[in-house]
């Protein structure tokens, strides 16, 4: 269960370029739910997703995940929280271009204390699930957009997280690859994952697998 309580995020507070990104955001996501955060570009969806992933601290307000407050976690605890709970699919994939597919996929597992064999098993499983295993030795920079996204998903899911956060996952994909992503999404839903997707792509609207849609405009929930 994710509880978001009166979140405010103000960038450059007190400076001439102060920007209010989020105001009084409050909602809940139940376990195994698929929730859509929708709204136009610049509405604050990505900022909210970063706060849910503890990648960014809110200016005020609280976020609770399974009863633990994560909004103001010290840096190392935030990293641990992400490592154990979150699979994040970034808008621009955020792969390391000079690493191979395999090396990108195992990135979250390297500092986790798993043995080499355990890591290989998890990576193989994840790469096979998202049909990228045959490219495991290719450099990420040499992959197509669709392949890069599959690597990004494989990496996000390699440590079997409870919560999956996806930020504009189809923004860099064509229509066919976007449809492919929806198939992945259904698989994830079937795997009983809690999923939050931030998007303004209409392809996601009114899907039968979506439990709820939350609209954000100019940092405010509608």
């Amino acid at each position, binding site marked *: 269960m994710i509880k978001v309580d009166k979140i405010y995020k103000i960038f450059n507070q007190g400076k001439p370029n102060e920007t209010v990104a989020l105001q009084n955001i409050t909602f809940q996501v139940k376990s195994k739910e698929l929730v859509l955060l929708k709204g136009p570009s610049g509405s604050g969806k990505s900022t909210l997703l*970063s706060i849910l*992933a503890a*990648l*960014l*601290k809110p200016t005020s307000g609280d976020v609770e995940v399974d009863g633990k407050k994560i909004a103001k976690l010290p*840096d*190392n605890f935030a*990293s*641990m929280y*992400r*490592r*154990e709970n*979150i699979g*994040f699919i*970034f808008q621009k994939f*955020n*792969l*390391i271009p*000079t*690493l191979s597919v395999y*090396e990108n996929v195992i*990135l*979250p*597992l*390297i*500092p*986790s204390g798993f043995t*080499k064999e355990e*890591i290989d098993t998890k990576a193989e499983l994840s790469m096979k699930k998202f049909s990228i295993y045959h490219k495991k030795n290719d450099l990420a920079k040499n992959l197509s957009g669709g392949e890069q996204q599959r690597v990004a998903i494989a*990496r996000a899911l390699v*440590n079997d997280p409870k919560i999956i956060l996806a930020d504009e996952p189809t923004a860099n994909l064509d229509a066919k690859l976007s449809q492919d992503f929806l198939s992945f999404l259904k698989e994830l839903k079937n795997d009983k994952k809690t999923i939050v997707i931030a998007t303004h792509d209409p392809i996601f609207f009114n899907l039968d697998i979506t439990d709820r849609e939350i609209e954000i405009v100019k940092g405010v929930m509608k």
Partner: protein
Amino acid sequence: MKLFNLLLFEYALSAIKRRGSKNIFIFIIFFILIFLLSSIFFISNSIKKELSYTVDSLPDITIQKLSAGREQDISLDVVEKLSTIEGVSQVSPRVWGYYYFKNAGANFSVVGVSRFDTNYKKSIQNVVDKYDKTIFDKPNTMIVGEGVKKILEKNYYDKYFNFIKPNGDFKKIYLAGVFKGSTLLESNDIILLSNENAREIFGMSEDKATDITIRVPNPKEVNEIATKIRLMYPNFRVITKNDLRISYNNIFDYKSGVFLALFIIALFTFFIIIYDKTSGLSSDEKREIGVQKAVGWKIGDILLQKFYEAFIISFVAFFSALTFGMFYVYFLNAPVLRDIFTGYSILKPPFELPFSFDFGTVTLIFFATVPLYIAATIIPSWFAATLEADEVIR
């Protein structure tokens, strides 16, 4: 967090490979810097070690006569008077000088010894190869250093040499032995012959010597005896063993200073790298740190990986440069660099540098370079790793 994580170590190795050209450049600069520093210290230590042996075997006091600021032959009359000074155990007049061999453009050091001195016979036997046991029974024989022998042979003097005396006459001296290779630093340009022959070659009268040496068994008395002699003979130059030691050290410290220029160039380049490192990471490196944090790496994990990277580069460069420096100095005998330390005489002594490993110096070089580089790598990574991951990725 474990200090050693094999997977992190492998990741660090792959990161070094990924940024190959930059790291190779850093490695080369690091290697040259350590190689230069260590080689120079090795050579300097070896020569100082060799010289300390030489200085130890020198007489406690050497006396020369000066006239108008120039060295003059010294009268043997003073020997008896010097022998009466309390604390002096032996007073020995020496006959020696330099002989210029025009054909080869080389200066030989000609040293005379007493034919009847049994001590000399023994010590010469120890240091001479191809020794002719009858040397002191024959009137016109000499023992030469390896360098002298080679020059003489080149000029077709393989059995004897014709010295030209000051009056223009020849003095034929036969080759009786060659000094052993182990004494090359001291003996390479030396010609050892009898005092009588040396006097004849230099045109020196029988009641004169080039200088006088004094043995003082108690080292604490040396300075006092030297002062007494200075008072007795104000026109004598009195040199103690310690004066010579200081003088040698000054020469080699000066020669070490020549390399300051080289150090400065190498250090300058090194500090450019350090500056480049500390002034910030490339956007790719920052982004990578952001991604690592986003997928759950802690600051400590990132810094440990960066530590491995910097340690691998700097330690491998340090260790290989140190090994190569030892190989260069002690196996190849430090070509080029050694000549600068030992002088430019035509008869350069082809001695081997004795092994001398100064752990303190190596430790000093290590701590002046490796931790500096590691810190320069880690500090900017720490800055990037402590930013919010979201900020770094965006």
